[in-house]
């Protein structure tokens, strides 16, 4: 494999314009295609049927064990979140891919929060991590982000109730300092915002709140992104409340929302919006299926995937926040798609 990852990791994460990115992706996707075809016979077969670098539907990772490494190189198997009874995707990671994912996440998020590891409040229960064998996408998400912070503190108890003693202690300890808050969208709203707002309690926590994992559950409660942001700014002193879009099949190379509410593709990944009828590229402003491309995976052939989400491309290289590359928004799941996402599959037990 002839990919210079150190070059990509040395680029500022939102620095490539359309032409530069196109050139880089052409080169690397060629190498990734060659690598995966040579190391994953199912993928090779698919390519001979569909042509080079096909977008694989995410569902394929449920039905087949797709990997481009040998058994003894497997380092971690990630599984997707799913509601009870759903089959889960299995994503095979070797040491290199796993480290690459963690480093990419760090590069992307630090562009928004700064390089210093901030004290971190995780808006979830530490129960999620207790059963280490049941390593869910939710646990993996929390752990992935926790490397970006320090003094990880869980805001919720085992029953998903606010742990006010712990939270107040955290607030006092880091009074006047920027902290990082992280959680899944629905849990943040249901188990953090709602009880705090009911009590009329405002936490003295400044800094950034990052959340992701699906909007569907909140959309059904008719909570829109503006309300979410305003609500969280009422119960904390957060100056930024940022959503992200990502999936376990392409861990690490997430799409972060900027202060203008646009999700941005970094140098590590790209997005295409396709028309459902014929899979041609949709225009800016036109709704279609989201195709995601990530340069990170070498242990499984998941570099180009067809998601089950719909989105709209909002522009390229010209977001007022100054970040280069495509920016877009997610409209939700396609009709008939399975429910997934760490936030959307959550059911209180």
């Amino acid at each position, binding site marked *: 494999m002839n990919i210079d990852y150190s070059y990509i990791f040395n680029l500022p994460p939102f620095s490539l314009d359309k032409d530069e990115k196109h050139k880089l992706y052409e080169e690397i996707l060629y190498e990734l295609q060659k690598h995966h075809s040579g190391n994953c016979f199912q993928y090779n077969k698919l390519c001979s049927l569909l042509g080079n670098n096909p977008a694989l539907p995410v569902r394929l990772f449920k039905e087949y064990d797709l990997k481009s490494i040998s058994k003894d190189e497997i380092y971690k198997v990630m599984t997707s979140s799913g509601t009870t009874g759903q089959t889960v995707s299995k994503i095979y990671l070797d040491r290199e891919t796993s480290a690459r994912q963690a480093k990419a996440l760090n590069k992307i998020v*630090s562009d928004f929060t700064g390089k210093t590891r901030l004290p971190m409040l995780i808006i979830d229960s530490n129960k999620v991590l207790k059963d280490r064998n049941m390593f869910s996408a939710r646990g993996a998400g929390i752990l992935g982000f926790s490397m970006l912070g320090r003094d990880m503190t869980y805001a919720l108890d085992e029953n998903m109730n606010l742990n006010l003693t712990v939270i107040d202690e955290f607030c006092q300890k880091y009074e006047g300092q920027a902290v990082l808050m992280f959680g899944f969208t629905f849990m943040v709203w249901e188990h953090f915002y709602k009880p705090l707002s009911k009590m009329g309690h405002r936490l003295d926590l400044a800094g950034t709140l990052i959340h992701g994992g699906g909007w569907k559950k909140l959309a059904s409660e008719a909570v829109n992104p503006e309300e979410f942001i305003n609500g969280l700014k009422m119960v904390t002193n957060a100056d930024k409340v940022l959503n992200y879009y990502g999936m376990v099949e392409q861990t690490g190379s997430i799409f972060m929302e900027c202060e203008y509410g646009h999700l941005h593709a970094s140098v590590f990944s790209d997005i295409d919006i396709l028309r459902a009828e014929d899979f041609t590229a949709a225009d800016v402003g036109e709704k279609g299926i989201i195709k995601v491309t990530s340069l990170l995976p070498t242990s499984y052939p998941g570099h180009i995937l067809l998601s089950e989400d719909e989105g709209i491309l909002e522009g390229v290289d010209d977001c007022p926040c100054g970040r280069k590359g495509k920016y877009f928004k997610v409209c939700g799941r396609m009709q008939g798609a399975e429910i997934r996402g760490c936030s959307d599959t959550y059911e209180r037990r």
Partner: protein
Amino acid sequence: MNNLKKYNEIFMKVFSVEEKALEELEYQGIDEWDSVGHMELIAELEDGFDIMMDTDDIIDFSSYKKGIELLKKYEVEV
């Protein structure tokens, strides 16, 4: 307490392993050193040596031996 002793004791405490096993210890090599255990280890090392590591170094901290090398960046000679 010298640094090596401190370093070893942190590993033994976090992963409940014996000193003689340390030299060969690797991330994911034992059940206790998984990603949850990893963050516990980093927190203890940071407290113990009064340092704050970069995220990339936490990711690269793949073994007992590699850790000794990485800590040099933070002026900790083990």
